[in-house]
């Protein structure tokens, strides 16, 4: 191996770079702290955060009762004209904050589900979770005629139950991505017919209420909803982030991950439970808003070019998508207010077509 003519090669300088692409090492306190920093990921995350903040301010300002942009910060803090403060603090700010929280929850949960199933379609929308939640909620509305809290609980129960059933049906020597997607589509279709049946038997006003709930909307969401979704995010988000690295290792295949020292089963169970809870919370608060969980992780991944799941990026992307979608929903046909779910469905549907098209062209679907 030794070649006396060649100059001695120093590790790290031979051939090419050894630090992962697009990253640099940040080492402090004499190596006690060493981090791998990806500027591109940082920039994307920062840009998404700024976008969400900007759209938040805009959605607080616009409306049938317009508030000048320069009055918005004051109104948020509680100063200025009384009507401004009322609209900002009482109506628009909680709505926008709910949108950001729900979007973040859906984005990060979608990233977890897609990573576990190793499938871009393995999001809660597709694998039956959303459909189960909708069926749970519709059952509560139509059969028990119960109120908001009970509907939310019904949605969570329906979602978790359906997710468990789908996972059990799809499980065979670990979770297989395509099987999960196919079983989920089947179960969703069955649940859809259950809902349709319930709707045909219901009183017209009840049926309309259920229909509106099923689209998913942020209309009239207040501080109670803000608290619910943000508390869930604050408690459960860090659990997922702590497992993020292990999740990316599991994308290498079960045996490889275990060989590298990842306890795959513990990781799988933890993130599955936490991501399900987050999805449930999001649906309980805003109804089954579609496509955010499907599109956000993929868009984040393509923007950051990480070659793997990015949980933070997915959360920020989900937040930005939903707060933008809700602004569009409020203003597109003003004064008619669309449910946000209609807008996300349009955006998401186009995304899905594009995704399938590129996958087909890549010969993978």
């Amino acid at each position, binding site marked *: 191996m030794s070649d006396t003519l060649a100059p001695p090669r120093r590790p790290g*300088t031979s051939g090419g770079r*050894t630090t992962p692409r697009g990253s640099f090492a940040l080492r402090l306190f004499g190596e006690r702290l060493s981090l791998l920093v990806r500027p591109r990921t940082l920039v994307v995350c920062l840009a998404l955060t700024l976008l969400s903040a900007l759209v938040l301010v805009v959605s607080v300002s616009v409306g049938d009762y317009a508030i000048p942009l320069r009055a918005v910060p004051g109104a948020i803090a509680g100063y200025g004209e009384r009507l401004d403060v009322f609209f900002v603090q009482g109506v628009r700010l909680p709505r926008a904050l709910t949108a950001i929280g729900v979007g973040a929850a859906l984005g990060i949960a979608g990233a977890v589900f897609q990573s576990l199933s190793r499938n871009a379609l393995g999001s809660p929308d597709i694998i039956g979770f959303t459909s189960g939640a909708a069926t749970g909620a519709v059952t509560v509305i139509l059969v028990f005629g119960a109120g908001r809290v009970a509907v939310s609980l019904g949605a969570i129960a329906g979602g978790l139950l359906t997710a468990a059933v789908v996972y059990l049906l799809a499980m065979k020597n670990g979770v297989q991505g395509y099987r999960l997607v196919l079983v989920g589509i089947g179960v969703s279709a069955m649940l859809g017919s259950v809902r349709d049946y319930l709707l045909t038997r219901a009183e017209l006003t009840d049926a309309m209420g259920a229909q509106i709930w099923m689209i998913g909307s942020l209309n009239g969401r207040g501080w109670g909803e803000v608290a619910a979704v943000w508390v869930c995010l604050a408690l459960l988000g860090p659990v997922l982030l702590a497992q993020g*690295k292990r999740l990316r290792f599991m994308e290498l295949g079960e045996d490889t991950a275990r060989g590298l*020292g990842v306890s795959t089963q513990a990781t799988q169970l933890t993130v599955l439970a936490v991501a399900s809870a987050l999805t449930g919370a999001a649906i309980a608060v805003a109804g089954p808003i579609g496509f955010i969980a499907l599109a956000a992780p993929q868009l984040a991944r393509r923007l950051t070019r990480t070659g793997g799941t990015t949980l933070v990026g997915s959360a920020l992307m989900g937040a930005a998508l939903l707060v933008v979608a809700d602004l569009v929903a409020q203003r597109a046909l003003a004064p008619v207010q669309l449910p946000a779910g209609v807008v996300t469905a349009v955006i998401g549907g186009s995304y899905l077509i594009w995704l399938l098209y590129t996958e087909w062209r890549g010969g993978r679907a």
Partner: protein
Amino acid sequence: MTTPADAASRLHGRDLTLAYDQRVISQDLAVTVPDNSFTVIVGPNACGKSTLLRALSRTLRPARGHVHLDGRVIGSYPAKEVARRLGLLPQSSIAPDGIGVADLVARGRFPHQGFLRQWSKQDEAVVAEAMEATGIADLSERSVDELSGGQRQRVWLAMVLAQQTPLLLLDEPTTYLDIAHQMDMLDLCAELHAERGHTLVAVLHDLNHACRYATHLIVMKEGAIVAEGDPATVVTAELVEEVFGLPVRIIDDPETHTPMIVPVDRRAAAR
């Protein structure tokens, strides 16, 4: 049951029953990987070679019995601790879309990293050395998607080398490789064994390669170990016929003077 030879071996298993759910693959299996050996496992397709390797690497928990690593039951170690002592190259792995070569090799450092220590100078040096050793240093900026099968296999091996483990378990490291790359890979394994003092366990398909490179050969059939030891004494025409159902002649490998297996020409016999 523990013999002195076992006590000296870093990696061994006793009374192992290996099963997937209800399906038993191996029963009452005893296996010892001699220290500092280049152990090669051979046997017909689906006889349980990968299953045994998975049990030895804690990827599969035995239904009965225990695998011991460095004097302790392997399941009693924290997962990362096992990964600092023993590296596994599984039969198949998945490279995420768009991942870079250096990124993938760097994944091998995971068992050495912690919350505050994510990319030390040592990590960098070890990754560089692993890529150098496997001859992929020039590919470090490329995407794994763009590589040939042989290059990809070397990237995976580099990832396992970056784990810096004294024990290496390799499941069919030469599949998908042409004859020249197969020999490259095996020479590299032999070098890791002879010059760097790794203990290697590899599953190989080619009996002649196994005889050339193994210091210890394990022959499996239907989940059981039917013979083991020095290839020169273990490999006989009767054994190969019994295990693979193929009549063969054994001749002397003119290069290495190890046993060389030549299948009997059954067409000539039929004539």
